[in-house]
């Protein structure tokens, strides 16, 4: 039972409503959709990291069986279509806006990464389109390419865009430089660290896909696509690419097989499919194969940083100075500019009272796939840097890493950080205490000694993270350069027979909204779960929405639903007051029943709904028929999930193979709607974090810009036998500024876990730092380096 006694409401681990269809093969993913008369698209992609297109000869392809057309950047230009955009404008320290070079949906005269979109072949079958794409002859003038993030801005590096000097998109700063410099002058110790946050490829299991359709009878386009935010896709395709006005463009994101950020963005392929549908007057379908996904999905992370932490004699943090170079890839992407700035620099206070922080970020273009938000987006990079340098501080100062963290914890809320955020609530001691207990930290030395007797190296690593999510208060987002507000919308509609349809602008692609949102409504309105249907992902059904990312669906989307449900209650009270001839002020609502206070007169919400749709005698000037309300909810602040992760590893020094023997995560997500689902989100986030820390890493050849890790045979995804069972628990401080007290849990696992792993691995080996991923080879080499006699170094 839950706190309010509703067995299906807040706090109940209700089994998921969506599982029946997924378990029986009845899911409806984009590639499962086939339209009558459908044709198939295959993209011709650049084999070069950087080249000028001298010419494209499609004549051989056009002569092949089944080919309907071949379209190039020239056709896009002839139709006067716009390009893809970045929805966030960042300003450099000198006040100038970021450099945002044109990003055409098909390359016009230059290609800038391996996989860049050159042309599209449309044919009767997918095989015919693929065969013909091989026959499109593109004459390239190959140009020098720059791949290395660290080198991109150096003198002499090839320019990705001729009009962007030094490949610098922007040079951003945040914090008080003078105060930070002063803090370093007073420091007893200065801890410094150079690190790389490895580039990742998101790899949701469902590859991207799109089906574009055009109805010449009504002039309406429909796009079925693998999107986390169909309304945003419609907005960009309409207002910026110029496919069709919004009222003539329907975007449907049906079941989507994972996103992790990579399906937030508006990509070339979906724009091309919907545009081409009118050109060939046939539906056009494109389904990415995994190789294309590796090349063309937006990648994540890719930072090179230098950090210095000023510490006093007792171990208190006085100042933090961070210099980061962040890769943007070849073009700016939908959110990319915001990721290494406002989703990164703002998180560098972490859980600590560090009074002075100054961060500088240079964003650089490289001849690689665009880099954008991937689970955590900026916050994992900040957390990794901070939790690594704090760990180094503990080692340099000879302090216990848990105690050093505790010495610096923020304990008074609200707390204004020196990097622009105001934490509303938290209790960092509580999560640390519980994590230490679950991880059995006090007996770790005995386990380390026992492992040593077996010839194994044991290490333990901490990460005490905080993140800002629930994106986002529109006022703040707008002030920081966002092109849109980041509110959410909801509509709660009672049907005459008392069942409920809830329309949300968030999108579920694994998060289980059909269950958790129904739980919210069930508890708030007293309707059974079976009588509630959650509808999302279709611009023709849902009024508006900003989508799902930034762990926003609970705190922002859920709050919008509650706001609409409150309007339902208010309307219901008016109806009951009228029916019972009572004052509205005397109508009480609880657990699905309206009562006239102090009497036995009552109506259930289902009776009220029926009444609302048979309003034979309503005083229409005061009371409208119907029970259907919508709401737009804009959060007051970000939410701030926090927690402690502790990783314990055992390493075989002979092979470098590292085993995670225990992974403990204690998180504070505020109030929890469905613990089963929240734990699942934590598991998945930790798995991706461990993947980054131990297995994954995207590599391009430095000379040629060819993607070396271009398949699941080269890019190491976490498998079942790479991971342990996780030990999960929660503490709770409810979010203070939204009506349901939730904070968000989708990204925390991927944010908190990587530094815990590397802190454990380096602790086991007895070294200060190792870049991710800690592969057996890297670990083995590091162990060897510790065994070399000093003289040989």
């Amino acid at each position, binding site marked *: 039972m839950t706190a309010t006694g509703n067995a299906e409401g807040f706090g109940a681990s209700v089994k998921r409503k969506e599982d029946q269809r*997924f378990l029986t*093969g009845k899911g409806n993913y984009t590639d499962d959709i086939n339209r009558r008369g459908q044709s198939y698209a295959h993209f011709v992609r650049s084999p070069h990291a950087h080249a000028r297109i001298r010419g494209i000869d499609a004549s051989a392809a056009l002569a092949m069986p089944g080919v309907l057309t071949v379209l190039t950047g020239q056709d896009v230009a002839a139709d006067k279509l716009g390009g893809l955009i970045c929805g966030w404008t960042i300003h450099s320290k000198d006040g100038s806006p970021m450099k945002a070079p044109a990003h055409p949906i098909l390359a016009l005269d230059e290609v800038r990464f391996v996989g860049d979109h050159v042309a599209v072949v449309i044919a009767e079958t997918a095989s015919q389109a693929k065969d013909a794409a091989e026959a499109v002859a593109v004459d390239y003038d190959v140009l020098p390419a720059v791949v290395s993030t660290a080198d991109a801005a150096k003198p002499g590096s090839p320019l990705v865009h001729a009009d962007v000097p030094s490949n610098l998109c922007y040079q951003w700063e945040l914090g008080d430089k003078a105060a930070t410099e002063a803090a370093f002058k007073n420091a007893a110790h200065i801890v410094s660290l150079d690190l790389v946050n490895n580039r990742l490829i998101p790899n949701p299991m*469902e590859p991207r896909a799109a089906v574009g359709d055009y109805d010449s009878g009504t002039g309406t386009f429909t796009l079925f696509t693998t999107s986390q935010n169909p309304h945003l896709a419609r907005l960009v395709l309409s207002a910026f690419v110029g496919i069709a006005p919004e009222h003539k463009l329907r975007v449907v994101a049906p079941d989507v097989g994972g996103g992790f950020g990579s399906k937030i963005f508006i990509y070339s392929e979906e724009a091309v499919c919907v545009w081409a549908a009118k050109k060939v007057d046939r539906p056009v379908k494109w389904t990415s194969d995994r190789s294309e996904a590796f090349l063309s999905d937006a990648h994540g992370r890719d930072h090179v940083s230098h950090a210095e932490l000023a510490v006093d004699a007792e171990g208190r943090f006085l100042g933090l100075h961070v210099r980061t170079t962040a890769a943007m890839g070849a073009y700016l992407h939908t959110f990319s500019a915001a990721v290494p700035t406002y989703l990164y620099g703002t998180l560098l206070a972490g859980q600590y009272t560090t009074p002075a922080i100054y961060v500088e970020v240079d964003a650089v273009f490289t001849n690689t796939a665009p880099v954008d938000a991937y689970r955590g987006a900026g916050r994992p990079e900040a957390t990794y840097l901070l939790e690594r340098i704090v760990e180094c501080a503990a080692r340099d100062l000879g302090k216990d890493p848990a105690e050093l963290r505790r010495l610096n914890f923020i304990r008074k809320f609200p707390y204004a950080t020196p990097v622009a955020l105001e934490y509303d609530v938290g209790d960092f001691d509580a999560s640390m205490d519980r994590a230490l207990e679950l991880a059995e930290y006090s007996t770790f030395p005995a386990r380390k000694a026992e492992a040593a007797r077996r010839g194994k190296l044991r290490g333990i690593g901490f990460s005490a993270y905080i993140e800002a999510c629930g994106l986002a208060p529109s006022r703040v987002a707008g002030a920081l350069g966002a092109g849109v507000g980041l509110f959410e919308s909801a509509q709660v509609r009672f049907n005459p027979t008392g069942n409920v349809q809830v329309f949300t602008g968030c999108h579920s692609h694994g998060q289980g909204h059909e269950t958790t949102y129904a739980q919210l409504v069930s508890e708030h309105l007293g309707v059974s779960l079976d009588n509630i249907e959650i509808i999302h992902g279709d611009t023709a059904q849902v009024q508006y929405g900003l989508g799902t990312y930034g762990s926003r669906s609970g705190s922002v989307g859920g709050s919008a639903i509650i706001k609409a449900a409150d309007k339902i209650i208010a309307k219901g009270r008016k109806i009951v007051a009228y029916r019972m001839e009572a004052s509205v002020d005397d109508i009480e609502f609880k657990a699905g029943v309206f009562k006239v206070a102090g009497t036995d007169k009552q109506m259930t919400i289902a009776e009220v709904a029926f009444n609302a749709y048979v309003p034979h005698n309503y005083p229409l000037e005061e009371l409208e028929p119907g029970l259907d309300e919508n709401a737009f909810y804009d959060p007051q602040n970000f939410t701030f999930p926090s927690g402690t992760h502790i990783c314990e590893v055992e390493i075989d020094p002979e092979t470098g193979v590292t085993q995670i023997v225990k992974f403990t995560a204690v998180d504070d997500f505020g109030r929890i709607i469905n613990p089963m689902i929240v734990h699942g989100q934590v*598991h998945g986030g930790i798995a991706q974090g461990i993947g980054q820390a131990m297995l994954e890493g995207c590599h391009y050849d430095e000379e040629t810009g060819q993607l070396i890790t271009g398949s699941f045979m080269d890019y190491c995804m976490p498998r079942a036998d790479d991971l342990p069972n996780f030990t999960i628990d929660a503490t709770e401080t409810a979010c203070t500024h939204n009506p349901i007290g939730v904070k968000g849990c989708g990204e925390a696992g991927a944010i908190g876990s990587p530094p815990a792993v590397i802190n454990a691995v380096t602790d086991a080996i007895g070294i200060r730092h190792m870049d991710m991923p800690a592969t057996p080879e890297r670990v083995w080499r590091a162990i060897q380096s510790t065994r070399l006699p000093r003289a040989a170094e």
Partner: protein
Amino acid sequence: MSSITISMSVNGKAVTAAAEPRTLLVEFLRETLKLTGTHVGCDTSQCGACVVHVDGKSVKSCTMLAATAEGAAITTIEGLAKDGELHPMQAAFREHHGLQCGFCTPGMVMSAVDLVSRHPNPDEHTVREQLEGNICRCTGYHNIVKAVIAGAAAMRS
């Protein structure tokens, strides 16, 4: 390209259809028979989203030509539940939240059923090792492992 006629039994029903000789079994199931429960998550036979049973054994249907399955008995995820009742393994995945986005789920469940036929009482280590050929990006496998062990117990009883 010329087409050939291919016959097999799918979920207990005899099917005959024309397809190009190069058609993969997964394409035949998804495109020709419109059985879209079987998914394609990669192009290197790594991810396991396309696992079906061919004559009772799990096979990655992206690695087999449809023509090679001539005369075979195929079971896909659509054929696992009987008379509207979930197979014990499907029920265990639901009970233990062994799925999130659902995309890897059909292959994962089909692999799990096959796993239990070879290891009727698997421990955690066995399950993790045996599922090495099925990639899930959502769950971190924790609940999948729980579900497979519980599903195995339900299949034994």
